[in-house]
């Protein structure tokens, strides 16, 4: 009987490995947060529903951030009603570069990035050019609720295009790289950088094929990079190696992210930032349901970090102390001890 159980066990193990399927116990050991656990133990526990509209609407977020003194890209204009589309021409006329996004869009849907003008036409980040009519149709779609949850009518927000910090030029195919920081109860716990690829159409969206680079919370150095959940070492378009990547203004980035907790009161928050050449780190948007891919980019489960913070006796520390705590405990150097506990 014993040999049979042993044989069965090794057979199951082999089959799983051959199909690259992990066992639940192995994932648990590595502290990987599952989607169900994220929803139940973190989002529904720490993100009260009444606060969600604050981050679901980018316009509200932006105004809230401006009020709180948190740096955000400049707001150029807002199109609220279909009849306002007539004003669009006037708003866009003087602009060379701009971004149009739905205020309630999710997952980067419906974001239009215009990087230049070609006489009458507007040039997208990918080099494709659009007529004014195509843009006003996009705006009309946004207002109609094409990109919002449940198809509710929406608002189109026009804001200034970020001038990407040139230090990431070699790491990104067009588009602006953005930095995602998970902030748990005010503590930055995990971070990654998202770099656009040709495949992702210049958008820093992992789902669409952007590269995710895990970042060391202590230093802002790269840890590991993945595309479509699989490890890569160089950028698929530029061929640049990620291992030398370091994010400047790292301390500022962590402080800005941590400040979003005071701003929104959301306990489990994904903060998306960009580095502007002239303005430094800016908050792009907030996400009350940040995805799990950050764990893959970091090569680490997030759960031990969340549990460490939950076990703290005192949470209402000043921003600087929270950032210092995170840098001290979640840096690569100290992580291995956390893994073991």
């Amino acid at each position, binding site marked *: 009987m014993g040999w049979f159980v042993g044989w069965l066990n090794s057979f199951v193990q082999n089959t799983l490995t051959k*199909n*690259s*399927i*992990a*066992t*639940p116990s*192995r*994932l*648990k050991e*590595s502290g*990987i947060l*599952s*989607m*169900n*656990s994220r929803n*139940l*133990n973190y989002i529904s526990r720490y993100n009260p529903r009444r606060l969600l509209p604050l981050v679901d609407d980018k316009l509200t977020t932006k105004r809230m951030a401006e009020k709180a003194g948190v740096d955000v890209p400049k707001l150029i204009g807002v199109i609220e009603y*279909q009849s306002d589309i007539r004003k669009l021409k006037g708003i866009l006329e003087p602009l060379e570069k701009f971004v149009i996004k739905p205020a309630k869009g999710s997952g980067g*849907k419906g974001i239009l990035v215009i990087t230049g003008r070609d006489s009458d036409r507007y040039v997208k980040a990918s080099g494709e050019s659009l007529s004014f*009519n195509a843009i*006003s*149709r996009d705006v*009309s*779609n946004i*207002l*109609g*609720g*094409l*990109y919002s949850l449940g*198809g509710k009518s929406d608002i189109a927000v026009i804001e200034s295009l970020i001038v990407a910090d040139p230090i990431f030029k070699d790491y990104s195919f067009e588009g602006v790289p953005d930095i995602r920081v998970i902030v748990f109860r005010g503590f930055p716990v995990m971070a990654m950088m998202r770099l656009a690829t040709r495949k992702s159409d210049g958008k820093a969206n992992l*789902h*669409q094929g952007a590269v995710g680079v895990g970042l060391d919370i202590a230093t802002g150095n790269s840890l*590991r990079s*993945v595309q479509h*959940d*699989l*490890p890569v070492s160089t950028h698929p378009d530029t061929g640049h190696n990620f291992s030398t990547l370091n994010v400047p203004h790292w301390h500022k980035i962590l402080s800005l992210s941590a400040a979003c907790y005071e701003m929104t009161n959301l306990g489990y928050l994904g903060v998306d930032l960009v580095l502007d050449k002239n303005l430094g780190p800016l908050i792009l948007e907030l996400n009350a349901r940040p995805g799990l891919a950050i*764990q*893959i980019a970091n*090569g*680490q*489960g997030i759960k031990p970090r969340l549990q460490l913070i939950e076990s703290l006796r005192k949470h209402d520390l000043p921003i600087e102390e929270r950032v210092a705590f995170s840098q001290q405990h979640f840096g690569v150097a100290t992580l*291995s001890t956390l893994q073991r506990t």
Partner: protein
Amino acid sequence: MKGRFQLGLMVAVLIVAGLGLTLYKHFALGFPLLGKDISTVWSVEAWVSFKAQGEAAQASLTLPDQQSDVRILDESFASPGYGINQTNDGGQRRAVWSTRKADGRQDLFYKVKLRLEPGISPSVNDQPEPFIAPVLPEPYQTAATSLLNQVTDRSADPVSFAGTMINQFNAKEPDQNANMLLGMVEEGVRLPDLLVNLLHMGNIPARIVRGLHLEDGRRRQPIVDMIEVYDGTQWQLFDPKTGKAGNPDAFFLWQRGAKSLLDVMGGVNSDVKFSIISQNVPTRELALTQATQDGAALIDFSIYSLPLEVQNAFKIILLIPIGVLTVLFMRIVVGLRTSGTFMPVLIAMAFLQTQLIPGLVIFISLVSIGLWIRSFLSQQNMLLVARLGAVIIVVILIMAAMSILSWKLGITQALTVTFFPMIILAWTIERMSILWEEEGPKDVFKEGGGSLLVATMSYLLMSNPIVEQLTFNFPELMLTLLGIVLLLGQYTGYRLLELKRFYPLVHSVDSVHSVHSEK
């Protein structure tokens, strides 16, 4: 922690209550758990008709009683304009219809449903009443006396006495005395009455009973007179025409005693006719009526108390939780992406009408044609709501075109296209086309395939006869389902697809570990 305990308790109570009620209904009330048992139920209708004289009218009809080997399931009266009373007339139930004013032909109905159930014997007080031996006019009295003497010699007990005597009258060549007495029948005395009188003269308790032979599809069936003889402990039935003793197969006793079957006041030409049909009824329905009779409260407050039409609607509605559970399982435990959370359930319900393969073909072709037409629309500058409206109209047009075309081609399956919910289809097309524009066709196939897979799984479960039987007969099981859903809502483990998604992550963690240990 407290909330968790409360929820756990709730889940346990729901699951146990659902299963417990189901088992109770199965074991105590006799609902079949699986399969469709069939039983025969006889439906006997008495049709009373008479011609009213334009004044108050009253008709009273003898009603059947509980009797051995027969279970009366249900009775009903139909008689517009009449008030109905049930009376008890010397141990015999009677229905009394009455009205203030009636004119012309009147039709009154009484319907009784019954099932032959050998072995049941209701405890009714059925002792013979005292009687006085009648005296017949001469020369019949003399003939009777000598016949009775003859029969007494040849019999041992009341039963054999009755049998022998009836045989005397039914013999091919009746003897002299019997022949003489048959003269009374020719004069208008009914044979059963004569036989009962003779038995009384022999000091044997006897009576006339009336009943019906249960045969399927009989209309205008006459009521049959029989004779019952008391043997000291119980009544024995005799057929006066054959002299056979014992209860004939499928004989339903309607009336005991010689009192009239039907009395009508305020009317003429009264008549009562009987029609009989047998129905094959699932045992469930039978259990139902029996439980209603026994006053099981569980049945009284259930779906079965609703009109039949509503019950049929519920048959489908009660299947929805099964589809919902499938969707939840595929989402929470497997982690499959579908377009629209419960859209697969709606598709599965459409599949119930169309069957699986035609349903899949219709759905895929509808959505494909819709996507193609939608791509034209997306080139136009349109408001979203208007475009959605346009897609709905286009979907309807495609449906109509598919129906007409398939009808001409003789493919009748495609006519079921009308069962697909149009608005859902239009939304699906809209969502898919956006997905196509944003994420490319790969995601469309992934999401569409996921939806169809979940819909197919729900359909296979929902169309399963056992599942249908269980959900409809035991709606209590929904409590159990609710418990399971609450339990699933607490599941924080990994989804099956996450096991694959996070594999590279564990893999690298492993290599990091091995590097550490090498150091």
